[in-house]
């Protein structure tokens, strides 16, 4: 025997190592490098299915019923073959709907029904409690065995171990399982601890099996040979007593096929804790292989114990007892640790999942109904802690009260039968669209009632809580209501009839209720989501996608107003219709959020074709096409899609950064293009105006040339006739001479007008030649006759660089400007008299930057600002006899020199005209 204190220390140390491992995993997970995101860990954690019942109880079952322990593991092996179809769907639905437990799953599928959730929680709670009790029983019993001499009273530590184990379990579960409220309900640290425990229990059991098979006997063959020849007759007789062996075998097979998926802890580990559905393929073979290994020595150990003379009724302890009685203390300690691992893993996972169900499906609805409990909403985490502690304590209490009355394996099968009640609702929910809330409620209620009446009540009776005659006489003395022979079924055994009747009533009422009652619209959407979870991926499985709640007429009006800002009403209407047609929404009154997003896209695309992508995007963002509520719905849809993509946060951030950067670049590019388009448009408009002007001038020029030609001939005749008359009329009186002179002057004025018209309307004729501007300007000024009384001063800058100009046309510019200046100073002189006024004209040249400036400044009459601004317009003049073409011709010629001309003037102060010519180096 081992010292109880030493065993306790080793047990506590082992739990401490698990605790530290779990904390390390939690830390790594927070850093985004979760070691649990691993198919090996996932597969090992599934072995929480193999509890202390497997570890110790299977050997007991093998001793008392032969190979009847095997279907408990063969059933899961068979069911797991379909995991790629079933489990993957459950995992995907869990991811989309953030499922936290098996009750949550059933509730979510059936219209998020509180009643369904509460009923499922009740079944899970009642079905799990005996199981937790079973684990405590295993730990306490085996501790007593390993630390006490046979027949001797248990040690003090052994008697008080229960509270220690309960305390350890509560602390461990609280710290690793419900330290915080996690919306994903994933507990990486705890799962790693469970995976390690599963590995330890496998190693320990194999070690015990190898010892018994190869050290106590000569291997499998030896044990099997001795069984054939030496197995005690009473054992064979005991096995043959089970007259319904094949029915029981099939019952176990069916129950275990359901239990591997629908036991609350199995659902939690395989579905809720699943990191990635890609872990499922590994679990598909690794977990069955695990079960094969852990069972391969069960029969040899059981037979070995019997062959060694131990009673089959003690076979539950053979795994531990055989090495212990053979003096293998360290091996016994390892086996004890393995058994404790099997028990503690189950207690922790079950208490977490049941406490989650209790708080979510019992407590939270109660808080809604009872206003006095509303304060607990802010203390949900504390409620969860209390629930965990309560579940573990009730499990321990149950073990103390009824644990002695039943063999371990029977308690386990009661839990299996409870989990079996979930099967129709879950499988129907994911494969049958018409399954509805009414059917689920009816089926679950009937199944729960049958299970309670045929399995749980007999357990109470056998524990002495209810009169034993209840089993024989039935409810109200009606024999056909006897719990273990319900409706007179005698031949198939208690558990088998529980399965049989609950299968009929549960499934039958589920189908009947679903057919009798109609689904609500929201339930139809949920059914579609659940059944079609694998069809096209999570992106299209959201109910919001198909829920048509948006009034299309309202949206069409907004779009019409949007287009109306840019287009005429008729065109805007046509474009709105086009968008609706492209989005295939013409015939609809109401649309879904996804259809609205498609319509938005069409509008933006069409608008972008007219006003550019950036403006279209901005205009749509400013419009009311998406209300706040609709934008939120759309966000939810995208969130579902992103969740379905299953990318890591880093990946998602990288992708978003990439797309944001790309969008920013595109927007910038679009903006630059817009600016360029505006510039080009402006240039084109200027060019078009110039072209039109040129065309007009060309036509005008041709017309002018023709008219001028036609006018010059008669004018020439008139001029010649006037000259002839002046020379040959003998008696010229003063009056005749005056009229003849006037004819001559008017003909000269007409010639001047024709010259200026021809000059203005002719095509570009300047022929630019590089030359010295000062020298040329001096010569031009010297040729001009300066009227008397006007002073012309020259201020020409020295060393000006040569510049390209046409001397002849530019001469015309200078003459025009200087004649204007003469007229201006003469007008002022006439106005002010010749007193203090000194008419002055300054002609200057200068160099500024890369241009040469020719300035003509006078101190004449000046111009009003409104006249100065129009001075270069053709045919604009303020003089009674002016043509209005002088300065227009100046501007035209300067433009031909690719230069600029500017004018500044102040009334009664003078005018300055500057001609700038670029120096081309």
């Amino acid at each position, binding site marked *: 025997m081992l010292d109880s204190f030493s065993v306790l220390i080793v047990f506590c140390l082992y739990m401490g190592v698990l605790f530290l491992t779990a904390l390390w995993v939690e830390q790594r997970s927070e850093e985004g490098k979760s070691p649990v995101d691993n198919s090996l860990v996932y597969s090992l954690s599934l072995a929480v299915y193999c509890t202390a019942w497997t570890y110790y109880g299977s050997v007991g079952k093998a001793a008392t019923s032969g190979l009847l322990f095997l279907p408990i593991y063969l059933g899961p092996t068979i069911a797991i073959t379909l995991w*790629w179809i079933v489990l993957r769907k459950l995992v995907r639905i869990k991811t989309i709907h953030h499922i936290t437990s098996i009750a949550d799953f059933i509730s979510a599928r059936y219209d998020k029904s509180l009643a369904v959730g509460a009923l499922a929680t009740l079944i899970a709670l009642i079905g799990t409690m005996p199981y937790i009790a079973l684990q405590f029983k295993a730990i306490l019993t085996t501790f007593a065995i390993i630390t006490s001499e046979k027949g001797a009273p248990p040690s003090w530590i052994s008697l008080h171990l229960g509270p220690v184990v309960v305390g350890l379990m509560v602390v461990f579960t609280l710290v690793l399982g419900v330290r915080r409220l996690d919306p994903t309900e994933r507990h990486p640290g705890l799962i790693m601890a469970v995976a390690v425990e599963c590995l330890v229990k496998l190693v320990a059991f194999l070690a015990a099996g190898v010892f018994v098979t190869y050290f106590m006997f000569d291997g499998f063959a030896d044990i099997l040979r001795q069984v054939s020849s030496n197995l005690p007759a009473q054992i064979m007789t005991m096995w043959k007593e089970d007259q319904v062996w*094949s029915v029981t075998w099939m019952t176990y*097979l069916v129950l275990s096929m359901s239990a591997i998926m629908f036991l609350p802890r199995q659902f939690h580990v395989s579905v809720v804790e699943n990191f990635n559905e890609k872990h499922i393929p590994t679990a598909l073979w690794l977990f069955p*292989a695990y079960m094969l290994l852990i069972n391969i020595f069960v029969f040899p150990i059981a037979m070995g114990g019997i062959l060694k003379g131990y009673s089959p009724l003690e076979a539950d302890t053979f795994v531990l007892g055989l090495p212990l009685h053979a003096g293998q203390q360290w091996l016994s300690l390892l086996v004890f640790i393995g058994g404790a691992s099997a028990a503690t893993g189950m207690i922790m996972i079950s208490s977490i999942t049941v406490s989650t169900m209790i708080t979510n499906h019992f407590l939270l609805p109660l808080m809604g109904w009872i206003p006095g409990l509303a304060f607990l909403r802010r203390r949900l985490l504390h409620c969860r802690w209390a629930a965990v502690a309560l579940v573990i304590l009730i499990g321990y209490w149950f073990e103390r009260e009824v644990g002695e009355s039943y063999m371990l394996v029977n308690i386990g099968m009661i839990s299996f039968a409870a989990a079996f009640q979930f099967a129709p609702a879950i499988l129907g929910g994911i494969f049958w669209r018409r399954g509805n809330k009414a059917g689920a409620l009816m089926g679950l209620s009937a199944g729960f009632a049958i299970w309670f009446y045929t399995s749980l009540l007999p357990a109470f009776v056998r524990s002495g809580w209810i009169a034993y005659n209840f089993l024989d006489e039935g409810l109200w003395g009606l024999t056909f209501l006897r719990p273990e022979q319900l409706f007179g079924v005698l031949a198939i055994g208690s558990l088998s009839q529980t399965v049989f009747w609950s299968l009929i009533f549960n499934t039958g009422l589920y189908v009947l209720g679903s057919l009798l009652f109609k689904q609500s619209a929201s339930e139809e959407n949920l059914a579609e989501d659940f059944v079609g979870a694998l069809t096209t991926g999570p992106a299209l499985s959201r109910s919001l996608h198909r829920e048509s709640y948006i009034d299309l007429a309202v949206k069409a009006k907004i779009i019409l107003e949007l287009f109306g800002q840019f287009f005429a009403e008729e065109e805007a209407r046509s474009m709105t219709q086009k968008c609706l047609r492209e989005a295939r929404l013409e015939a609809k009154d109401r649309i879904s959020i996804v259809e609205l997003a498609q319509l938005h896209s069409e509008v933006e695309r069409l608008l972008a074709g007219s006003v550019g992508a950036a403006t279209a995007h901005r205009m749509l963002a400013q419009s009311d096409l998406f209300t706040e509520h609709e934008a939120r719905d759309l966000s939810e849809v995208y969130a579902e899609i992103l969740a379905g993509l299953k990318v890591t946060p880093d990946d998602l951030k990288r992708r978003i950064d990439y797309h944001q950067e790309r969008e920013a670049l595109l927007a910038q590019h679009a903006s630059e293009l817009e600016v360029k388009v505006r510039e080009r448009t402006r240039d084109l408009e200027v060019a078009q105006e110039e072209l039109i002007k040129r065309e007009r001038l060309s036509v005008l020029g041709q017309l002018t040339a023709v008219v001028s030609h036609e006018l010059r001939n008669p004018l020439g005749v008139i001029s010649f006739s006037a000259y002839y008359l002046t020379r040959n009329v003998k008696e010229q009186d003063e009056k005749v001479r005056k009229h003849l002179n006037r004819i001559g002057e008017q003909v000269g004025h007409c010639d001047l007008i024709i010259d200026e018209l021809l000059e203005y309307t002719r095509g570009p004729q300047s022929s630019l030649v590089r030359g010295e501007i000062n020298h040329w300007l001096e010569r031009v000024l010297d040729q001009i006759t300066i009227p008397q009384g006007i002073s012309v001063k020259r201020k020409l800058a020295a060393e000006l660089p040569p510049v390209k100009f046409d001397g002849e046309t530019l001469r015309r510019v200078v003459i025009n400007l200087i004649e204007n200046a003469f007229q201006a100073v003469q007008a002022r002189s006439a106005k002010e008299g010749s007193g203090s006024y000194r008419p002055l004209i300054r002609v200057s040249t200068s160099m500024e930057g890369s241009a040469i400036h020719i300035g003509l400044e006078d101190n004449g009459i000046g111009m009003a600002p409104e006249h100065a601004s129009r001075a270069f317009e053709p045919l604009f003049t303020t003089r009674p006899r002016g043509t209005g073409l002088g300065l227009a011709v100046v501007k035209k010629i300067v433009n031909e020199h690719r230069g600029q001309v500017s004018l500044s003037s102040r009334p009664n102060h003078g005018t300055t005209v500057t001609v700038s010519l670029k120096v081309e180096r």
Partner: protein
Amino acid sequence: MKRIRVLFSRHEFHVLVFCLSLVLFSWPLVSSSDFDRINAMFVYLFVCWTVVVFLQFLISRVLTPRSPSQPTDESE
């Protein structure tokens, strides 16, 4: 080889293996009438179990992506 891979990835094949396993481990193949043949039954069950696990291993290999970018399976 590709044909085998496609076969093992089909959901119908998984259902077939499921049915085969169910038959292998069900009455009447697992008979209780002759307890004298318990050893033969023990060997039969574990051999069949190993075969089923091996089939599951082959299915798993087909479903496991060979590279991170490779899809694991076609949708339903």
